[in-house]
């Protein structure tokens, strides 16, 4: 590995980073911490690939005529952007890096339940990634990330099969990770680590894993059906034979709506940790947050039809889905209230992790509230397939989930690498990300409401100002995302040794040296206190 830090401090010399320096020792490792790093490097690569596609999109949208790309080229740019961001960055982002690194540490285990499956999961991810890169090189696809039939089966002339294979394969990496986390959380908790003492990060990863194992296989079979219809001319969704393309949408969204919770639940877990550590206070309403995660995982499976309101779905079914979509917002709202209440009268330190957490809370709230608007039948007829929808999900997925990813990076970087980075630069980049994000996506709400449809690059001239603003925001955002790369990597060699617990946070992971030793704990820890056992909580409990 090129970014190998010079291992100088005593902790580093006996850490997991010191357990072999050869490429082989990394590629054949079964240590969950090293696998997390492998994932971190690979998802960063895909984040950049998809980011370049986004840059192309935003550049093209600077002018109403769409001067940069052809119609076909534009379709391919947004399809690639969506596919890579969703399956190769956002879904694995927090679970496969921070989940992998932290779950065993947080529950007091030596590793995950099936360490070799864990490594296999990474290889499967890489294999799927290679297919994606292949598709990229040979020219891409133009179906959108949703692969709707009959476009994808009969008319699209991109590399649909290859990209379906890529997504199919990467799904198995999700499944293996989810399975591993479920069994790990059930069977490997240290003595005394009862369910009620688990950090909320664990609860949210447990809920995420349930979705991973229950939803992903449905996507897999849907892609198999799609591929066999395209390749062998089976009539599965073929309207000419009396088949129903809406059935494809049912299956696709049965996976893909829960998949949006795969992206947001781990982020919520991160925020619970960040907020309580910044406030040095026990999380307000522990059981509400824990159960809200499970409720989201369960109810999140019952709302997929809100993507099909104007697609020809029965109005009765739409009414049911609309109602259930309003219900699923309740547990999300509970969490937002509880994080806010946690900060109330806390002993707060404004460090980069807290700034990212605050960005998350604000942006997620906007994204969630606009989700509620979209879930109302009448509003959705107006704004379906417009930039309003695009803004809605970017507020949640980018403003929410990606901010949480960066928050996690800034919070656990000292634990993972043993070095402290520049807090000043951390604060600056959190601020820039927040500002750049809003400048990029807020105009899109207005654009959508005024009627600009998504997925077209030619638009009426009166929309240009807002589009230029959005593109300006995008360049700022891009710069802000690259910034941490520099000071974090710089800190690998030049940062001050972080010590075991730089934030004075509670949690088992902060009781180990930074970076942690290969087997995490010298002796299996015995847990005798609840999570977030901060002195402040005790003080207020005493009155």
């Amino acid at each position, binding site marked *: 590995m090129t970014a190998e830090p010079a291992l100088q401090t005593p902790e580093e010399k006996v850490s997991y980073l010191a357990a072999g320096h050869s490429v082989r020792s990394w590629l054949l490792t079964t240590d969950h911490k090293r696998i997390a790093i492998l994932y971190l490097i690979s998802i960063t690569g895909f984040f950049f690939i998809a980011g370049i596609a986004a840059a192309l999109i935003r550049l093209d949208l600077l002018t109403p005529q769409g001067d940069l790309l052809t119609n076909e080229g534009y379709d391919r740019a947004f399809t690639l952007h969506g596919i890579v961001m969703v399956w190769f960055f956002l879904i694995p982002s927090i679970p496969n890096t921070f989940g992998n690194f932290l779950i065993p540490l947080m529950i007091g285990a030596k590793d995950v339940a099936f360490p070799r499956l864990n490594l296999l999961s990474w290889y499967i991810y890489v294999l799927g990634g290679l297919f994606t890169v292949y598709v990229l090189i040979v020219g891409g696809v133009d179906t959108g990330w949703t692969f709707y039939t009959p476009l994808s089966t009969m008319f699209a002339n991109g590399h649909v099969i290859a990209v379906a294979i890529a997504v199919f394969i990467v799904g198995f990496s999700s499944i293996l990770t989810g399975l591993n986390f*479920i069994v790990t959380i*059930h069977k490997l908790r240290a003595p005394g680590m009862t369910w009620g003492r688990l950090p909320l990060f664990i609860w949210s990863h447990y809920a995420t894993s*349930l979705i991973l194992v*229950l939803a992903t296989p*449905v996507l897999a079979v849907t892609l198999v059906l799609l591929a066999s219809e395209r390749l062998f001319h089976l009539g599965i969704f073929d309207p000419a034979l009396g088949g*129903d393309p*809406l*059935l494809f949408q*049912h299956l696709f969204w*049965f996976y893909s709506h829960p998949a949006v919770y795969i992206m947001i639940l781990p982020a919520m877990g991160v925020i619970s940790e960040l907020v309580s550590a910044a406030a040095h206070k026990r999380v307000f309403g522990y059981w509400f947050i824990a159960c809200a995660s499970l409720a989201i995982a369960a109810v999140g*499976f*019952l709302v*997929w*039809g809100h993507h099909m309101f104007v697609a020809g*779905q*029965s*109005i*009765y*079914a739409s009414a*049911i*889905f609309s109602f259930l979509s309003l219900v699923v917002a309740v547990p999300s709202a509970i969490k937002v209230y509880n994080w806010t209440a946690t900060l109330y009268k806390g002993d707060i330190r404004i460090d980069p992790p807290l700034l990212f957490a605050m960005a998350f809370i604000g942006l997620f709230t906007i994204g969630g509230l606009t989700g509620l608007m979209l879930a109302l039948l009448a509003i959705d007829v107006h704004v379906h397939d417009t930039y309003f929808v695009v803004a809605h999900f970017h507020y949640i997925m980018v403003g929410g989930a990606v901010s949480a990813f960066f928050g996690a990076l800034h919070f656990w970087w000292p634990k993972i690498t043993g070095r402290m980075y520049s807090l000043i630069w951390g604060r600056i980049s959190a601020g820039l990300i927040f500002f750049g994000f809003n400048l990029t996506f807020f105009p899109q709400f207005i654009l959508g409401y005024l009627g600009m449809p998504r997925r077209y690059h030619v638009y009426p001239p009166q929309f240009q100002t807002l589009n230029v603003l959005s593109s300006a925001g995008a360049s700022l955002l891009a710069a802000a995302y690259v910034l941490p790369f520099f000071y974090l990597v710089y800190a690998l060699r030049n940062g001050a040794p972080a010590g075991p617990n730089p934030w004075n946070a509670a949690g088992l992971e902060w009781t180990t040296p930074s970076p942690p030793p290969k087997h995490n704990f010298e002796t299996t820890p015995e847990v005798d206190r609840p999570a977030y056992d901060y002195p402040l909580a005790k003080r207020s409990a005493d009155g």
Partner: protein
Amino acid sequence: MSRETTLLVAVWAALMLLLAATVAATFAPLGALKPVLNLGIAFAKASLVFWVFMHLREQPWLARLAAVAAVAWLLMLIALTQADLMTRSLF
């Protein structure tokens, strides 16, 4: 035969009887009841296999839950797609 093997063979015999029953039901004049019966028998067979052959009877209840949770989720998928298909022609 030990008690354990007797049980295994008994389960097999029950499975074969259920198979015979489901074939018989297919040719009986049962009308709309037929698919219900046939699926019911399939569930009965599956339960026997899961409970005895697949060791659910030896497992703690959480593991049992893990083994059958997917069925509940599948039912949600089927129920809500049907909610769409069955009510489309209502207006």
